[in-house]
């Protein structure tokens, strides 16, 4: 497995911000939007063939033109407050197939990414993902943090609209951040690097939906803007959020009224205690979600 560099940027204690696809693509959308808006420059990539099966072949007139693999690129940007390295992975590598990274390959990729980060003097790593929460879809998603040290707990509490995961009911005793957005933090901590995961909230019933959730990406992005002391343009995310909101509302309209009634209570209770739908309601939504999405599409989406 090889990392190819196109250049050797001079960076001063950069921070690594890494993103892979996951639930609602919350993390990757936030990280990639940030990278794009500050115009970070590509300076290297991880050769993909040991990790991924090619996603596309181009054959024209009997000649094999090329194979296309998922991208695994490094970018950098020097900002006034901090130097940054980005890593964007288009797919999560997995030794045994599946959407989320696991096994030897995932571990290998996490190490390669951190090798590059450490080569440039990085001491802190951010990843981003989704936190499935009992929130109402009309509420502003918060950012939930999981960190590698007590000191960082205090720091992230000061981030805007951010809470520690232990502040969410039923999550205080621990859990797992699946895939590389989680594994990278584990490997980083093992190497003695500071690591922080910023997860945008997504309503529990939407976590399995085949939709992005830009509202949560925006929340994460607002935190990054605050950390980096920059202002960002949210127009594109807002446009996308509006479109997704329309789809979600249409689906929601089809919920049975008694479930809706209970679900609406989520708006009036503090998010940390919010539940307000029964286990049976949750089961009903889970069982009908595909059907509701299909129906939404047939109705003109």
């Amino acid at each position, binding site marked *: 497995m090889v990392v190819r560099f196109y250049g050797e940027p001079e960076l001063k204690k950069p921070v690594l911000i890494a993103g892979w696809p996951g639930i609602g693509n919350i993390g990757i959308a936030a990280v990639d939007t940030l990278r794009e808006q500050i115009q970070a420059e590509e300076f290297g990539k991880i050769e993909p*063939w*040991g990790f991924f*099966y090619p996603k*596309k*072949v181009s*054959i024209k007139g*009997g*000649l*094999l033109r090329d194979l296309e693999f998922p991208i695994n690129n490094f970018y950098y940007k020097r900002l006034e407050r901090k130097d940054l390295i980005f890593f964007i992975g288009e797919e999560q590598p997995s030794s045994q197939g599946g959407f989320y990274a696991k096994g030897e390959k995932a571990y290998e990729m996490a190490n390669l990414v951190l090798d590059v980060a450490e080569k440039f003097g990085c001491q802190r790593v951010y990843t981003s993902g989704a936190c499935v929460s009992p929130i109402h879809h009309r509420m502003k998603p918060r950012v939930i943090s999981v960190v590698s040290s007590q000191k960082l707990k205090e720091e992230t509490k000061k981030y805007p609209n951010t809470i520690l995961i232990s502040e969410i009911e039923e999550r205080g005793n621990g859990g797992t951040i699946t895939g590389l957005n989680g594994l990278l933090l584990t490997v980083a901590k093992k190497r003695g690097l500071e690591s922080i995961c910023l997860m945008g909230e997504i309503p529990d019933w939407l976590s399995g939906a085949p939709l992005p959730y830009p509202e949560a990406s925006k929340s994460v992005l607002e935190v990054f803007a605050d950390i980096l002391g920059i202002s960002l343009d949210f127009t594109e995310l807002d446009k996308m959020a509006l479109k997704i909101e329309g789809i979600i509302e249409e689906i929601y309209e089809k919920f049975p009224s008694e479930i809706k009634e209970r679900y609406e209570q989520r708006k009036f209770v503090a998010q940390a205690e919010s539940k307000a739908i029964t286990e049976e309601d949750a089961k009903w939504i889970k069982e009908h979600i595909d059907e509701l999405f299909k129906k939404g599409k047939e109705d003109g989406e």
Partner: protein
Amino acid sequence: MENKLFEIYKALQFHSPSLIVGWQTHDVGKIGSRVIDFLNEKLGGQEIAEIKPSGFFSLEGAMFENDLIQVPESKLWACQKNGLLTFKSDVPEYEQYKFLSAVLHLAQYHCKVKELYTISGTVSLIAHTAPRRILTVFNKPEFRKRLQGYGLEDLTWEGPPAISSYLLWLARRRGISGVSLWPQVPFYLAAKEDPEAIKLALSFLNRRFNLALDLTELDEEIVRQKEKIARLRDENREINRSIRVLQMGLSLGEEEQMKLAREVYEVLSYPCHCEPKAKQPPDEYR
């Protein structure tokens, strides 16, 4: 390349042989496996090496098909007199890059292979009575030029790559010329065998490498298969109509396609106990 990925049983001397690869997973019309088996049998192929399955296949318990235990196999044979190597394998489930690199390493460094041919059937919406074509993908334009005159046709495609395309791409990176041969297989023969397409692929190899293969037994298989389908058409008007639609170059609805594929599959699964209907006109003329 770690030698522990493969095992060489017999070290032989070669002079720029060609490697012919057939995959036995999702083997449309059984083209890949039948062509390799035919070559090995008729040319006296000797098993010389294998890629070890560990790490490439899920070796959890025993897989079985038609009551038989299935073992993932990836074997290399040498048909030394004819300057050919044949490789028949299941498509690796994991670590495809490592697996294909091992195949090419074995071929290039241990056997001095200069040319690569992969053979797989491609599902086509044609009738079984239509002449088959071989669609091709080359990894180098100069190799394509060298094979002009064999009646091969160019393929154009953009989408998920087959394992053969991946192998071809890796071969090009190593300087090995390669071509994927994709004989057309009528969709309703895809799950069974298509002796006509098998014969077409073998005829190409026969010409290309002057193998002097006798393909008569395949002619007999073709006749037997056509007769079975002809009998089905006699008994089933709907099937007859569907095949006729295809013969006219028209397309069938999804349900009709499924029905045709199912009926033909069933009829070809039973051994034929009847004598061929000598008086029946060949179905090409219906």
